[in-house]
């Protein structure tokens, strides 16, 4: 039995790298700095060790050959999930390029809210160490932050900072959703200031807040149940802050055209900076390789991870290249599901030939034609994953010898087979 310290996590997205993990053969136990998101995903036991073809155990070679066979005759295979490390994504994109597939990250519907805003007008953002050391006002929009990342407050707010004498004085404001717990309560007992509204009303509320920041007159006295005077107070606080930060999880804004809300708040941040105030955005993401997928697809193709290769070159379409749409419309003819992090995240059920390159322990409603269990980056092999702030790639460690192949091993082998045959 050994204990490994300073273990980075690819699961929570906020780049915690201080976990201690006890390794006993292939079983893991988080002994320090675990959380509700990370601990179960580290401790999840290996059950499948052998690939299956048509539900029967098969060698890796046989499973790879079968997967390549299924892909060879296809017109439009879709590679969904895309939840793996940098090398896994490199292999995935090489395979997609080879067989003219669609590449679609499973969190893209949420991420799209950010990409559409970014690609239309841009933003001014910051990263976690700047939040930790500078942020004196955190505005959380439409998101239950501690459910998203349980250790966010402990690691980045209620802790020592270079440029704040007393970090317990930091102000936290929730707009939209109220927090589900007390992580946002300052060590000095001050509770977060919460202005609740229905999530679908956020577009209206954000629009009024931005207007107030821009000193536009507002005639209404309240919006979606929030007094305009309370929003004015937030606008004033943003302007008084030395380093305000506005954070949101794109996936939590689960309503139609939520990209306009992201744009509204990003433009509000720009407005503040044009009024000689520093303020920054902080989009929350980084779950199960979503930033990794978009980064690697970004440098390989120029586009985020909702891109097709069916015409021989990459084409990005944030709506048309949606796995579920392509399955529903009958345009797709094969499904490849890549998910090396989360055994619960299984492919959508379809009658199409299905290849799953997934974490050991997945249970399927419908057995895929090929299932190849792979190691988890940061547990079974070393690798790289991006944190939510998209700048920092963390170096994942190998914690145990499970003998499971990596996503890259498997996808590269399938690509080689497709090339030869």
């Amino acid at each position, binding site marked *: 039995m050994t204990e490994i310290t300073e273990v980075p996590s690819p699961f929570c997205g906020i780049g915690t790298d201080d976990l201690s993990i006890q390794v006993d053969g292939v079983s893991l136990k988080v002994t320090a700095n675990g959380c509700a998101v990370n601990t179960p995903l580290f401790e999840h036991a290996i059950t499948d060790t052998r690939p299956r073809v048509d539900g029967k155990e098969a060698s890796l070679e046989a499973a790879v050959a079968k997967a390549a066979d299924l892909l060879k005759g296809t017109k439009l295979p879709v590679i969904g999930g895309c939840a793996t490390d940098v090398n896994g994504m490199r292999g995935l994109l090489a395979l997609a390029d080879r067989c003219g597939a669609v590449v679609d990250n499973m969190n893209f519907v949420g991420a799209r809210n950010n990409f559409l805003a970014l690609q239309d007008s841009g933003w001014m*953002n910051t990263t976690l160490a700047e939040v930790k050391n500078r942020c004196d006002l955190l505005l959380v929009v439409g998101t239950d932050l501690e459910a998203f990342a349980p250790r966010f407050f402990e*690691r*980045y707010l209620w802790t*020592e900072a270079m440029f704040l004498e007393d970090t317990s004085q930091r102000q936290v404001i929730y707009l939209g959703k109220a927090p589900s717990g007390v992580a946002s309560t300052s060590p000095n007992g001050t509770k977060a200031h919460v202005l609740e509204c229905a999530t679908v009303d956020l577009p209206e509320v954000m629009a009024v807040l931005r207007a107030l920041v821009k000193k536009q007159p507002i005639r209404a006295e309240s919006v979606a149940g929030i007094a305009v005077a309370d929003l004015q107070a937030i606008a004033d606080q943003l302007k008084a802050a030395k380093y305000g930060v506005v954070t949101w999880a794109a996936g939590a804004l689960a309503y139609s055209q939520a990209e306009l809300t992201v744009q509204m708040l990003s433009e509000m941040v720009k407005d503040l900076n044009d009024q000689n105030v520093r303020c920054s955005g902080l989009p929350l993401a980084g779950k199960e390789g979503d930033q990794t997928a978009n980064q690697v697809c970004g*440098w*390989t193709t120029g586009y985020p991870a909702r891109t097709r290769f069916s015409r021989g*070159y990459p084409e990005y379409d944030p709506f048309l290249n949606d796995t579920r749409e392509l399955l529903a419309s009958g345009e797709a003819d094969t499904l490849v599901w890549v998910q090396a992090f989360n055994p619960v995240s299984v492919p959508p059920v379809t009658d199409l030939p299905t290849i799953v390159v997934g974490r050991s322990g997945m249970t399927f409603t419908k057995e895929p034609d090929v299932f190849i269990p792979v190691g988890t980056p940061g547990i079974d092999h070393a690798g790289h994953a991006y944190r939510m702030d998209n*700048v920092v*790639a963390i170096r994942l460690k190998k914690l145990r010898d499970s003998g499971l192949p990596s996503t890259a091993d498997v996808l590269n082998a399938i690509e080689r087979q497709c090339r030869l045959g």
Partner: protein
Amino acid sequence: MLIKLSGGTVYDPAAGIAGQQQDIYIGNGRIINPPADAKPDKEYDLKGKVVMSGAIDMHTHIGGGKGNIARTLLPEDHRQDPVASTHICRSGCGHAMPSTFVTGYRYAEMGYTAGFEPALLPINARQAHMEMGDIPILDKGGYVMLGSDDYLLRMLTAKKDQKAINDYVAWTIQSAKAIGIKVVNPGGINAFKFNQRKLDLDEQNSHYGVSPREILQVLATAVKEIGVSHPLHVHGCNLGVPGNMQTTLDTIQGIGGLPMHLTHIQFHSYGTEGDFKFSSGAAQIAEAVNKNKNITIDVGQILFGQTVTASGDSMRQHANHKHASPNKWVTMDIECDAGCGVVPFKYKDQNFVNALQWAIGLETFLLVDDPWRIFLTTDHPNGAPFTCYPHLIRLLMDKSFRNDMLATIHPEAQKMTTLASIDREYSLQEIAIMTRAGAAKLIGLKDRGGLSAGNWADITVYTDNPNREQMFEKPDYVFKDGELVVVDGKVVATKWGTTHTVKPDFDPSVEKGLKEYFDRYLTMKLGNFKISDEEITEDGRGSITVHPLKG
């Protein structure tokens, strides 16, 4: 395999050869002396062809987060230039900020065999290496950015001695797997986080009380004392500000004879004369460069058309956001380490400022005497995409072409430039110095940038053509480490280049202070911050080359 390149006209400034007919032999990836019993397995008849070593771009933004932000920001630009896969090449996109694979192919197709990313943020160096790890054919490397990181500024405020700073600088180079040190708007990126919107050479950071001049001094000293060949690589204060010529002259004076490289100097050579209060400072800058032998520069030429500017200079990029075209832009504050700003730009020949910027860059090229101290760059993609290099070479080598182009730009800009009166035309040897021998020497690359025996066989063969643009955009052959990778300007085979680094020594006790700082203030453990060799080599494609230190 023994390869013989027969009878080409060789331009090899590293060996003092300027246009002599010579045979070149290649064995095991390197250039070798003529073997006694020379029976080549393969011979290329190069009579009448021009032979140079592979070109080296010493300043090009090909790896790292801001480039990927630029890519993500501009899907409409990629759609203009889709690149399909072939049985040899991967698909991707081209134009302003090409995908990694296409970057490698297009550089190689112009005869380039190496490119250096000048702005590796320490915290983002891992990403830069991963991106460059997906650039085929080219060798690569990076200069790691310091000067706005809170650790250094704290050291300066605490009056730590030069030795302590040297240790930190050397440690950073090793941790980031870099080959040099870059500073961008010294202290200014940091000052922007404290809401300072400009920072002159002698203006103090409001929190630390440290000026850009002091930062340049300690970093240039550190680079020299730890023995790194590449001089401190400086993106100065006040980028793009009319009148910044004076800042640049003061920066040259202020460094007191220490080796210093001023990058994309075109953006730092502006006066305030004329009706538009914007004029060329190229003559004064060139004079200062000619006089001060410790100074090297690259130009950062602008060329007309759509591109995107991606810089570590968040302060200046924010100030310039109103020029964004299309109107969308990104800035970021990054990890108490640095920052970045990405602003799309469309340089127009009928815009007075853009037209004069074009002329200022060319004046600089033509007025600096010593081709060993000036380098051919567009600061890709900031002044123009690197694919414009053949056009730029023609502008330098062909006076009548240059003057024809000059006659088409904004008329007021024509009046404000001396370009028409400059007769100089670059020679092939001078182009070879700027883009090969000089660049290898400046970066400190051993066994690259030359064609004498012992060098790696990075070789480009051109057909001589009075139209220099056509000549340089389509080499007959390109060899990388002795393998033929390009024929007639098209990739015929791919391979993976190496990552060039240096490993200056430091006192290991430097990690004591760093560990405490990381634990208290940063979001990553010190041990997880340092990049290991395996991260570059473990996929079986990458390799690391460590170059010797000076003295």
